[in-house]
C-alpha cells in the first residue's frame, strides 16, 4: 500500500475513532444534562405552583383570622352574643368569598354555635374529638385541616380553624371555614396549558390514598391503585424529588414531585422521556453533522499532508531511478519541504556529487591508464615488429619464433587494453552513438576485406549474402566494431579452409538481421549461458582462439543493445551468431561514406 494512503488511512481511522468516542460521550452527557435541566425546570414550575397554592391557603386563613378579631367584645372581653356573631359573619365579605362553602363559629370547647349556611345537624355538635381541632387545642394557633373526605360526596373538604382569643390570650371560641374541593378549586387559574397534554400532572393524597386530581380539576377523586401497579403513583408516594420512572407499559418518564406540606398532598409532574430529550436529540444531530464535516475536513487535510509528504519522496525516487538508468545523468535537487525531506534531498545531492566526482576520477583514471599502458607498449611492440621484420638484421630461427611469440602476445595485450577501455567507456555511458541510416553491403565488404589477410593465412573464405541490399539505422563505426568481432571469432573457430557466411535478411518489417555462420564446432553447451559475459571464453581449442580478450562479445552485446538491437547465437553445423538492428529510415536512405571507414 502506498505510504500516502497509509497515512490517510491512519488519520481517517484516528479521526473516526476520536469522533465516535466523543459523540458517544457527548450524547450521554447531553441526555443527562437535558434530563437534569428538564427536571429542574419542571421542579421549579411545580414549586411555583405549590407556593401559589399554599399562599392561597394562607390568605384564606388570614381572612378567617380577620373575622376572629371582630368577634370579641372589647368591653366585656367575651364573644359577642350569638345574633351579633351571625351578623358579623354575614358581613365579612372577604371571608365569605374565600369560604363559599360556609363559615362556622364554635365555642371554646369546639361545639358549633353559629353558621352562615345552614347544614342540618351541625349546630350543637361538639367537634373536639376531630384531629384538626385537637391540633388547634394543642398549638393554640390557626390551622388548616388535612383533607377530610366528605361522607356523602366522597370529595375532600378542607377545614380552616382560627382560635378567637381574648386580650389575655384566653381562647374564647373558634372560627372555622370550609372549602369543598368538588365545588371550589384551590389551584391557581391558567396553569401552563402544556400540562394538559400527555404530560401527566397528578395530585395525590398520600394519607387517604386518593387521587385528588389527574389534571387540575378536582372532580375525579379515586382511590389510589395498590403499590406496584402504577409506577408514577409509587414515585409520588415515595416522594421522589426528581428522577426517571419506567411504567409497566415500558414508558419512560422524567418525574418531579413536590409536597404541599399543609395538606399532605403530593404533586407530580411526569414528562415522557422521549419528549424531554427531544431537544437533546436535535442538538446531537447538529453536532453529528458538524462532526462529520470536521471528519471530512480532517481527512482532506490528511490527504493533502500525505501528498505533500510523499510527493517529494516520489520525485526523489524518480530522480534516483533516472540516474541509475542513465549513468551520465546527474541531477542536483533543490532542498524543499519538511526538514526530513530536505535532509534526504541533501544526502541524495551529496551522493550525486560524489558519483560525479567518482565518474570524473574514473574517466581521468582510464585516460591515464590508457596513456601509461600504451607508451611502453609502443616501444615494446615497435621494437618487436622491427626485430621481426629483420630491420636490425637476420635472426637465428629459434630467436625468430620467440620474437613471433612475443609479438603475438604484445598484440593481444594491445587488444586487451583497447577492449578494456572500450568496455569501460561503454558501461559508464560515455560513448555517444551517432546513428544514421546506411546500407550494410559496403560495411560488410570492408570488414571482410580488412580481415582478409588474417583469414587467408588459414585458407578461410567469406561469402556475403546480401541480396536485398538492406540498410540499418545505427552508428556505423560501432556496428563495424561488432561485425569485426563476430568475423574474427568466426575465423578463429573455423577449420582450415572453411567458409564463413554472412547473411542479411529482414527479421520483421522493422528490423534487419545479420547472421555470421562458421563451420567450426559450435558453441559448447555448458558455455552458452554466459557467452556474452565479460571474460567468458570457451576452452582454448585452437591456437588462433587464444588471441581473444574475453571482452569482444560483451562489448558487441552492449553496443547492439545501445542501438536498440538484439544479439544471439545458435548452433547448426557450426556456430551462427546473429544480431538485429532497426531498419534504415525512409528519409535517410543514402549510405554515409565515412561511416565505413571506422
Amino acid at each position, binding site marked *: 500500500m502506498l505510504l500516502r494512503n497509509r497515512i490517510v488511512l491512519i488519520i481517517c481511522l484516528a479521526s473516526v475513532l476520536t469522533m465516535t468516542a466523543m459523540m458517544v460521550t457527548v450524547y450521554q452527557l447531553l441526555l443527562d444534562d437535558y434530563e437534569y435541566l428538564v427536571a429542574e425546570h419542571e421542579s421549579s414550575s411545580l414549586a411555583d405552583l405549590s407556593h401559589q397554592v399554599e399562599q392561597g391557603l394562607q390568605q384564606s386563613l388570614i381572612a378567617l383570622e380577620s373575622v376572629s378579631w371582630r368577634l370579641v367584645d372589647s368591653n366585656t372581653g367575651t364573644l359577642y352574643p350569638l345574633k351579633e356573631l351571625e351578623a358579623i359573619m354575614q358581613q365579612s365579605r372577604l371571608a365569605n368569598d374565600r369560604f363559599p362553602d360556609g363559615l362556622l363559629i364554635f365555642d371554646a370547647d369546639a361545639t358549633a354555635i353559629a353558621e352562615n349556611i345552614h347544614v342540618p345537624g351541625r349546630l350543637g355538635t361538639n367537634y373536639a374529638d376531630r384531629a384538626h381541632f385537637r391540633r388547634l387545642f394543642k398549638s393554640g394557633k390557626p390551622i388548616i385541616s388535612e383533607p377530610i373526605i366528605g361522607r356523602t360526596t366522597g370529595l375532600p373538604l378542607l377545614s380552616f380553624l382560627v382560635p378567637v382569643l381574648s386580650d389575655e390570650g384566653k381562647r374564647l371560641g373558634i372560627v372555622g371555614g370550609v372549602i369543598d374541593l368538588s365545588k371550589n378549586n384551590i389551584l391557581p387559574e391558567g396553569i401552563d396549558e402544556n400540562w394538559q397534554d400527555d404530560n401527566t400532572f397528578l395530585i395525590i393524597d398520600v394519607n387517604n390514598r386518593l387521587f385528588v386530581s389527574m389534571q387540575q380539576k378536582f372532580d375525579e377523586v379515586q382511590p389510589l391503585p395498590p403499590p406496584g401497579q402504577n409506577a408514577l403513583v409509587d414515585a409520588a408516594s415515595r416522594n421522589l424529588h426528581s428522577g426517571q420512572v419506567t411504567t409497566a407499559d415500558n414508558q419512560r418518564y422524567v418525574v418531579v414531585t413536590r409536597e404541599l406540606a399543609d395538606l399532605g398532598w403530593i404533586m407530580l409532574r411526569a414528562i415522557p422521556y422521549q419528549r424531554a430529550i427531544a431537544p437533546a436529540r436535535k442538538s446531537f444531530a447538529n453536532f453529528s453533522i458538524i462532526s462529520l464535516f470536521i471528519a471530512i475536513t480532517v481527512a482532506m487535510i490528511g490527504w493533502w499532508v500525505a501528498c505533500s509528504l510523499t510527493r517529494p519522496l516520489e520525485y526523489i525516487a524518480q530522480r534516483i531511478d533516472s540516474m541509475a538508468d542513465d549513468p551520465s545523468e546527474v541531477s542536483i535537487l533543490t532542498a524543499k519541504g519538511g526538514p526530513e525531506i530536505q535532509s534526504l534531498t541533501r544526502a541524495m545531492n551529496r551522493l550525486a556529487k560524489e558519483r560525479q566526482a567518482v565518474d570524473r576520477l574514473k574517466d581521468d583514471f582510464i585516460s591515464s591508464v590508457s596513456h601509461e599502458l600504451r607508451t*611502453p607498449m*609502443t*616501444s615494446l611492440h*615497435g621494437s618487436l*615488429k622491427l626485430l621481426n621484420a629483420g*630491420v636490425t638484421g637476420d635472426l637465428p630461427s629459434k630467436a625468430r619464433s620467440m620474437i613471433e611469440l612475443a609479438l603475438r602476445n604484445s598484440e593481444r595485450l594491445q587488444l586487451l587494453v583497447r577492449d578494456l577501455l572500450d568496455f569501460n567507456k561503454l558501461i559508464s555511458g560515455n560513448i555517444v552513438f551517432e546513428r544514421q541510416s546506411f546500407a550494410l553491403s559496403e560495411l560488410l565488404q570492408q570488414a571482410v576485406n580488412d580481415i582478409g589477410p588474417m583469414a587467408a593465412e588459414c585458407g578461410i573464405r567469406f561469402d556475403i549474402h546480401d541480396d536485398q541490399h538492406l540498410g540499418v539505422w545505427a552508428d556505423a563505426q560501432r556496428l563495424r566494431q561488432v561485425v569485426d568481432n563476430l568475423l574474427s571469432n568466426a575465423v578463429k573457430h573455423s577449420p582450415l579452409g572453411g567458409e564463413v557466411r554472412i547473411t542479411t535478411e529482414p527479421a520483421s518489417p522493422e528490423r534487419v538481421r545479420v547472421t555470421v555462420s562458421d563451420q567450426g564446432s559450435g558453441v559448447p553447451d555448458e558455455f552458452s549461458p554466459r557467452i556474452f559475459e565479460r571474460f567468458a571464453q570457451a576452452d582454448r581449442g585452437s591456437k588462433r582462439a587464444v588471441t581473444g580478450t574475453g571482452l569482444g562479445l560483451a562489448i558487441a552485446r552492449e553496443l547492439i543493445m545501445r542501438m536498440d538491437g538484439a544479439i544471439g547465437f545458435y548452433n547448426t553445423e557450426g556456430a551462427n551468431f546473429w544480431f538485429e538492428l532497426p531498419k534504415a529510415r525512409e528519409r535517410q536512405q543514402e549510405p554515409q561514406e565515412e561511416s565505413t571507414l571506422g
Partner: protein
Amino acid sequence: MTVLQRVLYVEDDPDISEIAALALEAVGGLTLKGCESGHEALAEVDSFAPDLILLDVMMPGMDGPETLEALRRQGSISSDTPVVFVTAKVHPEELRRYREMGVTDVISKPFDPMTLANELRAIWERFHA
C-alpha cells in the same frame, strides 16, 4: 609537389624516439631529427627545416599543443608544413580538440613501425593534394 623527406619528431620518451628513428630512417628511408622537448624543437626547427613535424601530445613541461603554439609564434611552421600529433589518448573528444588546433592528422600509439613512414607519406600526400 616535393617528396616527404625531412621529419622532425618531438618525443620525451627516448625508447619511442629510438623505435621511430629505426622505423622512419631504416625502414622508411626518411631523414629524422629527434627532439626530447618542445624547447629543443624550438631551437632546432629552423636549422633543420622539416617537411613534416611529429609532436607527442603528453610531454613534461611543454606539451604537444603548447609546442605547436610556440612554433607557430616563432614563425617556424610554414603553411605547407603538416603537423601530426602522436598520442596514446584517442578519446573522440580529444581528437576533436586536436583537430580544432589545426593539426593535419593524429597517429595513435602504439604505432606500427613498419608502416609508420608510409602513413606519414600518405598524410603528406593528402595534405598537398
